[in-house]
């Protein structure tokens, strides 16, 4: 035990000395709910109170980590990722609500939140396989559009499945999803010996979110280095070459869709329990695009990039814009027109601008994966399809020199 113990102590020391900034960041993040309440008390409740918003930010970070598998690792452009988020959330809601559309709620044991969240992720995984299957032969843009179609269809289904009749099994006009009213009263997480989470104290939600993100990050890292991860990357770089090297494209693609969907379903179930209700309007195209923005801006293919992107995009949306509005409001006392600006209405413009600028300047994102970054710049070295433009430039350069 001796040497190992020594080693762990020295490595802790190394960590503290070399990565002290990271260590401080981790401590600050972990203790944020306390810092927040201290801030609130000291400032007389003028600033702070961001824990609730941060839970949503964490949820977007989870989604970004899941989409990173689909878009970043496997290179499948998914524009309908919110579909799986919706499926996870609705599964959670229907599994645990005390007033399900059928007569009796599912007979889960006391702590059924934890069971239900796993089942919800499982249902999302399964739906990932189902929705992924027809897209196997499609590539690039066509794949993007089919997933976009699914992403539009799924909320329509949840909105309209208010009278489901299945012949022969005695189901007659079952109000499955309650339309716009949604499903409410969803199970809360329960820690044995401590009790249920509540909507009053948001700190446990925050820590649960952090825990899920740590697990998601770990899974992302392990998947990246796994045999499957290498198959995804091979497929991303060249599908035909990968197939001829023995990568089973069907299996690899389905697993990418399924795993991405499972992450999304997990986040959806967590979100449904946190909000205590699911409504079809929370799962539209904006969610899919926000998560895609997060992955692309952060750096697709790198889980830390996706995490950073998720936190940035959702953080600016949930906290930054509100903060800017408050500041502008205060400044409005001096500069009249500033007081009327509501920056939360600027979301689209800012997302759009950020996407365009990042694509023009740094298409691989802020924290790129090295191999992925090379792929993004491949075309520029070759200049187009056959290098004619490069040849033209060469000629121009020569003529200028001569």
């Amino acid at each position, binding site marked *: 035990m001796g040497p190992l113990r020594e080693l762990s102590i020295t490595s802790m020391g190394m960590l503290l000395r070399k990565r002290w900034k990271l260590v401080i960041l981790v401590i600050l993040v972990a203790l944020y709910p306390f810092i927040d309440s201290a801030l609130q008390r000291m400032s007389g409740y003028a600033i702070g109170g961001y824990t609730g918003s941060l839970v949503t930010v964490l949820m977007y970070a989870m989604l970004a980590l899941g989409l990173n598998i689909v878009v970043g690792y496997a290179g499948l*452009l998914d524009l309908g990722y919110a579909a799986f988020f919706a499926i996870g959330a609705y599964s959670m809601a229907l599994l645990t609500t005390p007033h399900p559309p059928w007569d009796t709620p599912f007979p889960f044991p006391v702590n059924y939140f934890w069971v239900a969240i796993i089942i919800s992720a499982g249902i999302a995984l399964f739906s990932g396989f189902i929705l992924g299957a*027809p*897209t196997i*032969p*499609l*590539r*690039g*843009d*066509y794949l*993007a*559009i*089919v997933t*976009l*179609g*699914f992403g*539009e*269809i799924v909320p*329509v*289904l949840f*909105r*309209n499945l208010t009278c489901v009749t299945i012949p022969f099994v005695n189901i007659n006009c079952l109000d499955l999803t309650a339309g716009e009213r949604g499903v409410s009263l969803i199970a809360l997480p329960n820690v044995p010996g401590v009790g249920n989470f509540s909507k009053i104290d948001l700190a446990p939600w925050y820590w649960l979110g952090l825990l899920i993100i740590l697990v998601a990050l770990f899974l992302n890292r392990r998947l990246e280095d796994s045999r499957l991860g290498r198959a995804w990357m091979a497929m991303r770089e060249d599908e035909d070459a990968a197939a001829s090297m023995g990568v089973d494209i069907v299996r690899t693609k389905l697993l990418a869709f399924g795993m991405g969907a499972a992450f999304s379903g997990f986040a959806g179930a967590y979100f449904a329990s946190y909000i205590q209700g699911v409504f079809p309007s929370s799962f539209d*195209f904006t969610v899919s*695009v926000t998560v*895609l923005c997060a992955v*692309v801006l952060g750096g697709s293919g790198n889980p830390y990039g996706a995490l950073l992107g998720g936190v940035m995009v959702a953080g600016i949306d949930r906290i930054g814009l509100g903060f800017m509005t408050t500041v502008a409001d205060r400044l409005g006392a001096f500069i009249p027109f500033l007081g009327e600006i509501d920056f939360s*209405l*600027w979301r*689209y*413009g*800012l*997302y*759009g*601008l*950020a*996407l*365009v600028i990042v*694509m*023009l300047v740094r*298409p691989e994102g802020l924290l790129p994966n090295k191999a992925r970054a090379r*792929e*993004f710049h*491949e*075309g*520029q070295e*070759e*200049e*187009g*399809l*056959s290098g*004619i*433009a490069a040849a033209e430039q060469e000629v121009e350069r020569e003529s200028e020199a001569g």
Partner: protein
Amino acid sequence: MKPKITFRNVAMWLIMAAVGLFLANAFRSDPTLFAQQVINGMSQGAIFALVALGYTMVYGIIELINFAHGDVYMVGAFTSMTIASLLGASHTSDPSQVIVTLFLMFITAPLVCALLNFSIERFAYRPLRSSPRIVVLITAIGVSFMLEQVGLWWASIPSDLLSYFGGSGATPKAFPALVPKINLLAGTALGINLTPKHLFALGLAIPLMIALRIFVQRSQTGKAMRATAQNRDAARLMGINIDRIISITFIIGGALAGVAGVAGALYFEGVQWNMGFDMGLKAFTAAVLGGIGNITGAMLGGFFIGLVSALSDQYLAGQWTRAVVFGLLVLVLVFKPTGILGTGSSQKA
């Protein structure tokens, strides 16, 4: 080539037969209602087709799904409503003022949209000409968001400046009823309602499409466009100025979206900041259905999607129409990615 009996083909024919039977039954039970929905569908479809042309032309030439194209249509609709506001035209104005307003709308909106589409290509897409396709696609999504932001601001311009706008930018704004809602077939025994807004959509779209087709098939520029779509490098070697041809394509596509914007605002009697998103998806579905890159295909696809939406509104339920249209999109892409008239392959995409 002998048609193969595969699962795909059988499934496709079964679905088509089911839809055919359903429609035949609908026609039998109430022919007048059916005919009315066909007219509505064709008029909507004309607008879809105009927007679809922009998608298909751009995809044909640079293989980009121009996500922002639907929002260019929105800008067209907003431009026409701005002109109506500036000229103070309303449903009580005298006919001469209405005609002048409409004329100005149909001149200005295409010009604005053509310029806008040209600038989008020039400043956002051209620098990325040699980047991977996903980069350009995401840029297009970004441009689309920026235009929607412009729509939000535009719609919230106070009504003392532009009388038909104002209030929250997010709410739909009613378009002034400039064209009277008279039934042109009132005296006949058909029992069908055909109003000037139907005629506007159809009467503008069909001549424009014929003109476009003649332009692309007969003119020197059209020939260059087709050559560029076939093989950009070879076209460059033949002395075609690729940048100029791509710009012309975006300008034509933008102008058509502008006309569609005016016709759409008149037809749907309202504008909204995110009207371009739905229109874009439907028009893109139309373009894919007709075989993307194929101009005639986009026109037929547009009319087809219009018909499907109108019939679905009538015979299923309005809230299912989105699912029907996107379900159709998914089915086409999965079963016949080349579309009805297309010749390319899904591998190209």
